């Protein structure tokens, strides 16, 4: 009997390892997608046609707040992984809730920025620069939205079933994805916004 249990545990461990590698390979291919969009953006950033350039439309203090929100969200998510490891379900749920709220605030600000630009008449049909801008920043935003949905699912699972092996694994996967999105944003912030106004 105990032999069977040990065999099952080994099987489960192998499954977890495979799923970790799977997420990792997905993240690497996603990086490829972002790299293509970054290269496209850098090539097209001077092609503003009759539209505005980056320095005319970027509201830098606004984008800085956005950046700090996402950075803090990533940090709080890391803390949630620590309380999870320490076995504190309540603290983990609270920290993950803060992670999600900060992420949602980030996404809300980004959508506000997009709506504002479109309202001013600077939409993606105006110039190659704006097409590349909306595609790159929008793709990152879409990833954040997926992350928020994922977070909601793992949050509910954690609340209902508590700290199980499976939930630990799912949360570790989510946290990897979330840190990854924060790292991509560092480059969006630098290449698009900072270099746009520098």
């Amino acid at each position: 009997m105990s032999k069977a249990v040990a065999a099952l545990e080994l099987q489960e461990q192998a499954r977890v390892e495979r799923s970790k590698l799977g997420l990792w390979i997905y993240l690497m291919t996603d990086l490829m997608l972002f790299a293509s969009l970054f290269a496209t953006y850098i090539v097209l950033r001077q092609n503003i046609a009759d539209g505005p350039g980056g320095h005319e439309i970027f509201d830098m203090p606004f984008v800085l707040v956005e950046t700090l929100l996402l950075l803090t969200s990533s940090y709080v998510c890391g803390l949630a992984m620590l309380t999870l490891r320490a076995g504190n379900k309540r603290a983990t749920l609270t920290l993950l809730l803060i992670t999600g709220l900060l992420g949602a605030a980030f996404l809300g600000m980004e959508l506000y920025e997009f709506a504002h630009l479109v309202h001013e008449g600077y939409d993606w049909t105006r110039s190659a620069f704006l097409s590349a801008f909306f595609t790159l920043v929008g793709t990152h935003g879409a990833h954040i939205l997926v992350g928020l949905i994922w977070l909601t699912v793992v949050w509910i699972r954690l609340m209902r079933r508590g700290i199980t092996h499976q939930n630990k694994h799912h949360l570790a996967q989510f946290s990897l994805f979330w840190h990854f999105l924060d790292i991509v944003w560092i480059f969006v912030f630098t290449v698009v916004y900072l270099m746009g106004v520098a």
Partner: protein
Amino acid sequence: METRTTAHIVNYTAGFIASLVLTGGAYIIATNHLFEGWAIMWVLMALAVAQLIVQLVFFLHFGHGTDGKWNKAAFWFIAISIFILAIGSLWIMHHMDYNMMPPELMDSHMMEQRDRGF
């Protein structure tokens, strides 16, 4: 167990503060135009890469986990692909831009060719 958790919290917080400093520094340099021309691009890129390394080490614990060899293989394969894709695109497009005739010259050149009967 307690001290290990505390050590981890200190670790994360150090990474967070370093990220804040790097973000703030890059923001101040860019908005106040503290450097000129290409220098500012290189400085901003260096700060972004520094923050990438800080987050990889402090948040993702890159390098001191038991990453499998397939993870490493995938990482380096993608790193090389991205280098070729990104740097290659910029290189080619820059040279195309450089070697392209300016639009006004192109127009007169085409007129000339037409007048010659091509």
